[in-house]
């Protein structure tokens, strides 16, 4: 997969099939982008486990923060990477170790070599996108802010 663009169906499948997300690089500060994304995804029914060595042991939005991905108990469906492109490499390898099904790198984060390794191991990869924006775009909510969702539908669809 070339990862220049993703079909709506590809993104939709991922968002529908995931329940638990480990967010690596989650911030305890409520005005940081990662906090926004965590809060939004929680509101949409996802379980989001924060991973951040700096905030390990702290509670973020009602969830215990872990120092590393390996320490997260239980199953992790998707690893959401809020770190830079270089750091995304080793984190992807940890995600493969953790038997996650999806590696999702945030806006501005792109690591083609890591993506190739993940796909080789059978994981799905999304790079340079935000799950909050994609969820909002596909559900129609993004249009509420004046954004071009690129979605045209005459179906009577449920919001959120």
């Amino acid at each position, binding site marked *: 997969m070339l990862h220049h663009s993703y079909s709506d169906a590809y993104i939709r499948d991922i968002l529908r099939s995931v329940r638990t997300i480990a967010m690596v690089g989650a911030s305890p500060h409520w005005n940081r982008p990662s906090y926004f994304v965590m809060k939004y995804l929680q509101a949409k029914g996802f379980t989001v486990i924060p991973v951040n060595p700096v905030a390990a042991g702290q509670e973020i939005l009602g969830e215990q923060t872990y120092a590393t991905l390996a320490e997260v108990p239980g199953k992790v469906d998707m690893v959401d990477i809020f770190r830079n492109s270089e750091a995304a490499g080793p984190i992807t390898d940890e995600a493969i170790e953790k038997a996650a099904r999806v590696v999702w790198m945030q806006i*501005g984060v792109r690591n083609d070599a890591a993506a190739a390794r993940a796909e080789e191991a059978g994981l799905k990869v999304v790079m340079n996108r935000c799950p909050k924006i994609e969820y909002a775009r596909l559900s129609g909510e993004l249009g*509420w*802010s*004046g*954004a*071009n969702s690129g979605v*045209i539908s005459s179906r*009577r669809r449920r919001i959120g």
Partner: protein
Amino acid sequence: MPSPKNPYGIETLAVHAGASPDPTTGARTTPLYQTTSYVFEDADQASSLFNLQSYGYVYTRIGNPTVSVLEERIAALEGGRGAIATASGHAAQMLAMFTLLSPGDEFVAARRLYGGSITQFTRTFRKFGWNCVLVDPDDLEALRAAVGPKCKAIFVESPANPGGAIVDLEPVADIAHDAGVPLIVDSTMATPCLCRPLEWGADLVVHSTTKFLSGHGNALGGILVDSGRFDWSATDRFPSLSQPEAAYHGLRFQETFGDLALTVHGHAVGLRDLGAAMAPMNAFLTITGCETLPLRMERHVQNAQAVAEFLERHPSVSRVSYAGLPSSPYYERARKYMPKGAGAVFTFGVRGGYEAGLKVVEACEILSHLANIGDTRSLILHPASTTHRQLTEEQQIAAGAGPDVIRLSVGIESVDDIIRDLDQALAAAAS
């Protein structure tokens, strides 16, 4: 043109973009949410909205569901990332400069603009400490030289009021980007059906939606569309989008919202604090108007071409300024940037000067004598005796509105009727 983001034709986008059946009732057309405020689910959801952490509505000054549909509709038509609807075209221009400029800053604007824009730019904007430098957009060297260290944008109008001159958008966009500033294009007289400035390198597009977009002369409005491509954080020139915003607890708009930065800021700060929101009713009317935009523009340009050709042959007419005519210096440029037609607004000179001009507009039976453009109805104006009356003859000529100049906005009536009306009006002026 289908694109990765919008793989649909412009006719489909015009009818559907931004709208889908109401989930609660199944209502097919966009409901008119004639409401000022919205009930919160609970305090937590309320604070989440106020913090910009989730999507939803708080107060119609900041956002409204009917207005949102129009914003997405026009963003999609222009191929942009997002849009902010405003009370008027002037308000959209105000919003753009408010977002990009601080007191003491400058912007470079084309000399050929709608007169109202010139007044807003050169007089009223001074009160905010914003300086406007006017240049001839056809003189690329002068344009390049005019962009100084305090410049935050280049602004052009294409086609330009009143004579329909076309700007060479590609090199102008390059000049803007070389200087690290965005190019803003007022595309009111074109509409995305005839020209999509973002495809030629522009970063922002403004419209007076009052004109062709709503198309029926019944709804005042404006809109600012963002391509989402400009990197506001590449330098420190655009602090409102790249630096911490105190009103939102220190978040940086581009960092938090990516290519939606200007769209979100435009609502959360621009509309919130300037208050120039589009009325839901006007958005409702404009949405309906947009549905037929491609059809209407087709007829507008068909009629305008026929009327321009008729006038060019008429003995009472000294010249016609319309880029759809081979005699126009902008003919080739129009074929490049606006292959479907050079718009429907143009000027012509009537023999007999000021007095003849006055007589022509007052003799029309079908064309409406008023100050507007982009209506289903054909409109006629003699600027020298009305909108540009306060200027000296020199200033009028410089603005393309000399004493003998008449401006037409050709409507969608039967073209023979439009031509016949002009013919009898010209005869009345000559007698």
